[in-house]
Each structure stands twice: as structure tokens, then as C-alpha cells.
């Protein structure tokens, strides 16, 4: 089922998907390491969440975890 031609058919999905998830993760990590204060949780927790939970981790960080500048 997972032949090479099928993979090729799904490349238009996989590439943007990968790029966006990577972009969100990097944006979140950069923000986490540049700031000391978080509304909820601590640095270790947010680094783990941002890396382990793709999309959801960074979104949760920016909506709930991000502290004030």
C-alpha cells in the first residue's frame, strides 16, 4: 500500500505539514528560551510539550503558557 508512487502523490501534503509543524515548534522554542516567566508551568515542561506534541504543544504554549514580555 505504501509504494513510492503513493508517497509521491501525498508529497504536496507532507511537505507543508512538516514545514508548518517545524516552524511552529521553532517559534515556540525560540520564545521559550528567550523568556523566563511563564503564566503556567516552567521551561522544562514547555520545551517537552513543544517538541513532543506537534502543533498542539506550540499552540498551547502561545495561548496559555506564554508570559508577558
Amino acid at each position, binding site marked *: 500500500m505504501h509504494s513510492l508512487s503513493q508517497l509521491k502523490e501525498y508529497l504536496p501534503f507532507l511537505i507543508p505539514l512538516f514545514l*508548518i509543524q517545524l516552524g*511552529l515548534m521553532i517559534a515556540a522554542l525560540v520564545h521559550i528560551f528567550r523568556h523566563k516567566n511563564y503564566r503556567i508551568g516552567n521551561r522544562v515542561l514547555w520545551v517537552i510539550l513543544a517538541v513532543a506534541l506537534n502543533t498542539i504543544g506550540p499552540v498551547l504554549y*502561545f*495561548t496559555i503558557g506564554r508570559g508577558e514580555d
Partner: protein
Amino acid sequence: MVIFMRGFLAFTKKEFLEQLRTYKWLIFLAVFFLFGLMSPLLAKLTPDILSSMDMGGIQLNLPEPTVMDAYSQYFKNMTQMGVVVVLLVFGSILSNELIKGTLVNILAKGMSRTAVLLSKYTAAVILWSAGFLLSAATNYGYTVYLFKNASVPNLMFSMFCLWLFGCFIIALILLSSVAAAGSFGGLILSAVTLIILLMVNIFPKAEKFNPVTLVSKNTALLNGTNKAGDLYLTVAMTTTLIAVCIITAVLLFKKKQI
């Protein structure tokens, strides 16, 4: 009136900068793009995923996924996860500033409270519209790519209903944030109101008047069970409710101690 407009425009601009600074645009556009991308893909791959799982020898005969599956997957994602994202991103548009006290100075300088609320609503609706349009376009593009034939009836109207429901949620958040205290008060109050509205829809007679119907009839609209005309009353009702929410929020906000 001129002063009001000037204040409104200045505050709307400030809201946009704030949205950019707090990564709301990044989150919103990324997540809604992903919804548009994932939905047709999930619909297409579901039979493959299910048949690759070991079902203890049971043979599953799943029909080939159709364009309808792609759209119902999309509307399911948008009305469940999408609503959660909208609540999370916009849940603190007002409460944050009330708690930090950043509004005190601006209001003391003569900025109209009405302008503040209208600016917040305008900026939020524009961000929601941008995210929504991006996800709708992405979803349409990928559905055409995967399913070739992507034409279904009432697609535009169904999309419009979804968009209007988003605008209703934002108005609800605004009203709840004025009415409830604390940083999560507004968020919780609007979530509770939405859950109540969902439960009210159990009664068939309430359906036509309930904004939730806008997002529960998407699939029925697309496969022709419901006609667009069935929802006109709901659209009118929701538009009225949005206006009522905003006006009530403004009236309450004018009396609120800040």
C-alpha cells in the same frame, strides 16, 4: 463622531499590532491552514488506515471515500477543534487588559469605551476571517487535488454559516468578558453558554432559532437533506444575536468600574 472614528481606528491598529506581537496571527493561520490540509487527507486515508489495522480477522468493506467525506471531515474539524482554537485565542482579548489595567490610561485620555469594544471586535473578526478564508481555500484546493470532482451543492452557503458562527462566538466572548471577572471568567462563561446552546438544540422547535444550528447542518446542506432556505431564519437570528451581544457588552462596559 470624528473623534470617535479617530479613536476607533487608532485602537484597531493597536489591536492588530498586539495580535501580531502575541503570535495570534501565527497560531491562527498555521492551525487553520492545517485544518484545511488535514481534512481531505484524513478522509482519503481513513479506509487505508482502518484496513491496515488488525481487526481480529474481520474483513472490513469500506466504500471508496468521496468528496462528501472530505467536506464533512473539514466541517467536523472546524466546528470542534476550530471553535476550541477560537475560544483559546480570543478568550482573553478583553480580560487580559482589564487585569493588567492597561486600559485605564487610554480611557482616562478620553478614548470612548464604545470605540474600545468595537475595535476589539473588528480586529478579532478580521483575524478570524483571514484564518477562515485560508482554511477554506486550502481545503478546497486539496480536495480538488485528491478527489478531482469537488463540486457539492450549498458549499458557499455552508461556509458562510461557519464563518457567521465564528463571528457569533467572538461577540459572545466579548460580552462574557465584560460580564465575568478574572482572567478566565470570560472564556469559561462563553464556553458554558455554547454548551447550553448545544443542549438546547435537542429540542427540534428551538433548532431554527439557535446559532448552533449553523454548524450542525453543514453536512445536511451539502448532501441536499437541507436547503439553504431552511437556515435563513437561523442566519437572521444569529446576526441579531451578534448585534445584541455587542450592544449589551457596550452598555455593561460603560457602567463597569475599571
